[in-house]
């Protein structure tokens, strides 16, 4: 068994209203110094050792992310 983390983020050129809302709110809450925020999704998967990187890439590209507007990264983490 391995733990795999997939992060899915809006592409840099794509509008990110959620990140904007967070960035806009921080100064009002008294937190200065955060100049940009982007918000995406974070998936943690428990996978059998039989699942190879290729398959994981297919899962990320074809299902967890919407490649029209999102980028994704995969990493396996030690447990």
């Amino acid at each position: 068994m391995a733990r795999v983390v997939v992060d899915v983020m809006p592409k840099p050129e794509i509008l990110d209203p959620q990140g904007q809302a967070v960035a806009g709110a921080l100064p009002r809450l008294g937190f200065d110094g955060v100049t940009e925020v982007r918000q995406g999704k974070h998936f943690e998967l428990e996978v059998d050792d039989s699942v190879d990187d290729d398959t994981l890439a297919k899962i990320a590209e074809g299902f967890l992310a919407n490649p029209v507007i999102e980028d994704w990264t995969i990493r396996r983490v030690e447990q």
Partner: protein
Amino acid sequence: MATDTTLTDTTARAAETPDAPQPYAELGLADDEYQRIREILGRRPTEAELAMYSVMWSEHCSYKSSKRHLGYFGDTTTAEMREKMLAGIGENAGVVDVGDGWAVTFKVESHNHPSYVEPYQGAATGVGGIVRDILAMGARPLAVADPLRFGPADAEDTRRVLPGVVAGVAGYGNCLGLPNVGGEVVFDRTYAGNPLVNAMCVGAMRAEDLHLAHASGTGNKIILFGARTGLDGIGGVSVLASATFDGDESAGGRKKLPSVQVGDPFTEKVLIECCLELFAKDVVVGIQDLGGAGLSCATSELAAAGDGGMYIDLDRVPLRAEGMTAAEILSSESQERMCAVVAPSDVDAFMEICRKWDVIATEIGEVTDGANLVINWHGETVVDVPPRTVAHQGPVYDRPYARPASQDDIQSATPDSLTRPSTPDELRDTLLRLVSSPDLASRDWVTQQYDRYVRGNTVLAQPADSGMIRVDESTSRGVAVSTDCNSRYVYLDPYRGAQLALAEAYRNVATGGAQPLAVTNCLNFGSPEDPGVMWQFERAVHGLADGCAELGVPVTGGNVSFYNQTGDTAILPTPVVGVLGVIDDVRRRIPTGIGNEPGESLLLLGD
């Protein structure tokens, strides 16, 4: 990354380099269209001008294939039909006098292709766009409806498209606070690679508050407000940066620009409230929403509708991306933006209201006493054009149309040739097939995702035949809307089929207790370059117009969406007809359904 400013294609540079090759064909302009632009300007267009003309002269913005036929709506509208019409075809949306000093505006728009590429965002921004159209008339948007068409319910791709589209309509409309009061869900295999996502919005205002898009008054300021401008939806225009001066590869790295736009309904909600306060404080001379062609469209249409010229300083446009070129800024389809013309003495009050709503507002130019729309970028002129040539004097085509030979076969296949159930078992089978058909199934899965209650004025919504909204709480005056189209009928006989769509929408409004007053449409067809499709279109327009004349209700506006096809296969011709009615007291509405009370009599009207 940033484009070298020494390469900015200014009008001066264009005059000096008349023979520089330009990617007009890639931008969708025909040879003669490009030549016409050169004639109008007396030189080659700059990159920015080429971007403007190419998008404004596109089928979508210029109606070049449909214009000739759409004129028939005007030809068949009598003075009597026009009586209650305060604004008609040519404005952002039609406006109708519904009595007691109230004016109601309504329109349907298509967002078909974007919804196929990215169903959620395509549908969401479709709703956002039509709502801004209504807002730009000076009205408060009251309700939305969504006529939808998908491929077969069990097709693999429908499973991607349908939930995405419905979630997008819901996600945007619900967050905007507009009740969803109607629509359609229809399945047919011809929509498999080309779903139809049409969105209707209805709005109301006091008749005297009607705002038409125009920019008059030398010295009046042009204010851009709402979201920042980014690289949304300008995939096509990126050929400019790389092709004209075969720029370096870093510019070429932008080639894969997104042609999708992402909606931000929260920004739009705030923009609506901000606009309504601006209207109420009377600090707006003219206003225009930024839709399909972004600033190109807004500036050229505002200037064309005024009596002078216009100057725009593009450097002042608040941007979301770095290194955008003038052409990209002009073509960007970033959502949730509006453009207003404001008297200098009102600018402070205007800005104050925008600050209250946290809406970014920037003075980007002014109305001039010149004749041209002049746009500067980095201190140099990149656009200098007669605005009407961009906005209204696009090419008009007289496309060939002909009744397809196959039409005879289609029509000769009458129901008589169908086998009929003759045994109880066959009858049972037919009934089961009917009740299990997606076309007759409950629409709850869709409509449950839509807020039909917000604002507390919804009198009728699903499962009623028409949506009904109370406009005035003190008098209980209200309006009703319905959209309909059975495209199989239209396929069989486009003239009669369009009339049947009209009759159905008209009946749906009437059965709720409202008096039908006006008609809008969204004409979804295949390629206008196919004479058979053009024939369907011409027949449908005539059928609809003649039907309207017979019923005495005018067509106040509409939308044409061509090129709805997969390969050579066009969609079923789908002229969605929207009918608007008025009811002077919504408490007298007639809810759909029978058997509410024991002892009701059932009467059949008509034959």
